[in-house]
């Protein structure tokens, strides 16, 4: 994916997903900068594979050592003063941080590649400023469409519009209508066929927060619907409650997609696939896993392999590549994540798309880095988000050992903390539990001793 002769500038800009579409995002992000930034920089570093890259992070990372060699350590760190909530704009506006970056890049005298977590208006500002400063930036891998349009495709309404542009994909979308107010949502849900389950998604919902479900034959009186929506708005989804409560105020704003529920929300399989769209390739599958969803909507992890028939998974990939093609024709370059629904009684539905680094992608990239391109043939994994860590975790080994006993893993399984965040009460981690053949297990054991993958299996 990356030409290692270039100087890689990794931008932990995941939060910029909110700024072009949510009016209050900048204000909110400014307030909760540190809390958001922890973990984000770790995830940002998963997407490249070059030692000594430059990391642009919205806050000083707490621990730059790679977890078990799962990613490369940055060689140079730039943390701009927070002003706007957009790390890229803050960087360009912070004279000291900007000068530091330019000095470093000028010394390198190599072409610069920007590796962001998503394409945003901030990235455009950053690239323009670098070019203006005389830095040779390779823009070939950046989208030809603006960050504003990418942000629109990242919304529920915009993403659905894009999906409708391909006839085959359109036929795989659940029926839906757009409502601009909660009053319209309530009216629509209350008057819909009681035998038809309904899913309501706020335009900027993510990870299941801002998504409400109304199963078939459930009470659909207007007051019940209003209560459901307002209660969930204020409390968030149970598992994520402490973390996501603070996000309330933006993620549930309209417009809303009111969508028919397909299959059985408790028994559906929900695969997710990540693709890479580049100038040369209109779509390349990077990885595919099964999402772990609470109440059928709230993301709390991912596992591989997927519990579904190969033919249906092949169909998922086909549909994903068709979406890649549409995006490629529109000038998009970068990550595409597609969520699917596989009901128990058959069929393949496309739930939504995300044009950004996704959580399952992080796991695929780590697996690929640790175990090589053919990891999927011999390994399995489960990744759990927001697992509470007890006590201070000094090393990866500490965390792994603590998790081993807590998660009751058997001897062929290894737990690897991918990213550690500040939870509302204590530290939490995204934990990747991996199992495989004997050789892989030995590799994993070495990983927890913080040996680099090159030392372990040279070709990783």
């Amino acid at each position: 994916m990356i030409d290692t002769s270039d100087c890689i500038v990794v931008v932990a800009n995941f939060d910029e997903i909110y700024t072009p579409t949510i009016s209050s995002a900048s204000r909110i992000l400014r307030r909760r900068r540190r809390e958001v930034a922890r973990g984000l920089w770790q995830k940002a570093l998963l997407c490249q594979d070059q030692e000594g890259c430059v990391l642009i992070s919205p806050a000083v990372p707490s621990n730059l050592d790679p977890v078990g060699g799962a990613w490369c350590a940055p060689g140079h760190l730039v943390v701009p003063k927070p002003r706007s909530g957009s790390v890229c704009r803050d960087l360009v506006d912070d004279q000291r941080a900007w000068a530091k970056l330019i000095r470093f890049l000028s010394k390198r005298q190599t072409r610069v590649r920007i590796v962001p977590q998503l394409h945003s208006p901030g990235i455009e500002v950053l690239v323009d400023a670098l070019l203006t400063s005389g830095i040779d930036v390779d823009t070939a891998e950046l989208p030809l469409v603006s960050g504003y349009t990418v942000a629109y495709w990242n919304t529920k309404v915009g993403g659905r519009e894009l999906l409708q542009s391909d006839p085959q994909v359109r036929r795989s979308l659940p029926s839906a209508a757009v409502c601009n107010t909660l009053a319209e949502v309530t009216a629509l849900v209350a008057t819909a066929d009681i035998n038809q389950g309904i899913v309501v998604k706020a335009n900027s919902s993510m990870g299941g927060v801002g998504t409400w479900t109304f199963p078939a034959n459930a009470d659909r009186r207007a007051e019940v619907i209003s209560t459901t929506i307002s209660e969930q708005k204020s409390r968030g989804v149970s598992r994520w409650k402490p973390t996501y409560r603070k996000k309330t105020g933006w993620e549930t704003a309209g417009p809303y997609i009111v969508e028919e529920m397909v299959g059985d929300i408790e028994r559906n399989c929900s695969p997710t696939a990540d693709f890479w769209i580049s100038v040369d390739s209109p779509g390349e599958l990077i990885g595919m896993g099964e999402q772990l969803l609470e109440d059928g909507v709230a993301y709390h992890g991912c596992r591989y392999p997927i519990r579904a028939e190969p033919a249906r998974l092949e169909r998922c990939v086909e549909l994903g590549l068709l979406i890649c093609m549409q995006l490629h024709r529109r000038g998009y370059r970068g990550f595409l994540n597609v969520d699917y629904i596989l009901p128990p009684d058959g069929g393949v539905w496309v739930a939504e798309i995300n044009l950004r680094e996704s959580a399952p992608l992080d796991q695929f990239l780590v697996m690929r880095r640790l175990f090589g391109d053919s990891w999927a043939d011999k390994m399995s994994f489960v990744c759990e988000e927001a697992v509470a860590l007890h006590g201070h975790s000094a090393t990866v080994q500490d965390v792994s050992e603590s998790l081993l006993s807590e998660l009751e893993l058997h001897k062929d399984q290894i737990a690897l903390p991918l990213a550690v965040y500040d939870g509302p009460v204590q530290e939490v981690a995204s934990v990747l539990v991996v199992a495989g053949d004997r050789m892989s297990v030995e590799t994993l054991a070495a990983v927890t001793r913080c040996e680099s993958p090159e030392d372990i299996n040279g070709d990783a």
Partner: protein
Amino acid sequence: METREPRDVHVLASRMRQVASKFRADHPLSAPRWNSGTYPLATNVQGRPDTKTLVWFPSPGCFWSLSGGCTMCDFGSNPQAQSVDSALSDFDALIERLDPGVQHIHIAPGGSFLSDQEVPPELRRGVMQRVERLRFLRSVGIETRPNLLTKRKLLELINSLPTQVQHLTVGFGFECLTDIVREVSIYKGYGRSHVEAAIRVINAVNADQAHLDITFEVYVMLKPLFLSEQEAIDEALRTIDWCYAAGAETAVLFLNTIKRNTIQAYMAERADLMPPLHYQPPYYRSAIQVLRQLTPTQRQRTAVLGVQSGVLADGMPRGCPLCTPFLLGALMAHNFTRDPSILDHAANSICPCRDAWLEDLLVPGEDLRSRIYHGLEILEQAFSK
């Protein structure tokens, strides 16, 4: 996305200046069809549908345009410009015909209201004195190039406004954010720094007086010369976002049209070229799309204009007979109500030209920068000295 250093833009802008100057010498601006006139604009004031009355009076025309500036514009020129007294007499007659209940007026003489060449100081004062007759007038809007806005001129303007006016809006036709597009495709002749300096003047005057509230609005062009449909949408979005970040109260998205005696009209006649070099106006659907991609707060403050004008257009925005009336109505309804559901209905409407619009959103073969170079070369071949 801008992909070269600014000095490169200056070189290209300088080449465009030569082309534009030659073009204007060969194609003088038209005589104005109406020396003075008025039409109502749909607007929304504090959440309620309202109208703003646009008025203009006789003036010699925009001096930037007379020198060849702005590749899309022909507000006309009036070489036998009337005296100040005569212009005021025309304006008097116009004011007499207006509804005395008018609350919002926008004075747009087809150039810069603060240009002494176009609107001499005594004419400015006279115009402001005459609007005093509109006893219910609450707000006044003017347009100017930002480099002409000085603290002295702004204070003079405020002092000449009738006492019932509580709000003054200064409009800047900034058109688009990306330097190469604004300076070469449009040949606008000013940049972000000029607008930012003007904003500082407005802020300083606001700080010095509590007599009335001064805000600014920015006019954004949808689909300048050489841009594809998707590039035009993106450029409008980033420009509107920049305007609001800079403190604009409102933004107005202008659907580009083809006016006679413009470089844009010349490129629209060049059917031997492939679009986007062969100029085609934007689709109505693109304006709807821009509005839908804005944040709710930005959308609430953004109007769409450009179709109504005191200068007749040879080429209007694109749409088919089935969608044009509906989409125009939706845009008008948006201007009045700012209700997003209207835009959803408009976007989801199906018509024969919708697929053509979707096709036009795809990436053109040549990147924008190369296309602008190429377009400039074509113009140089046609209008070299």
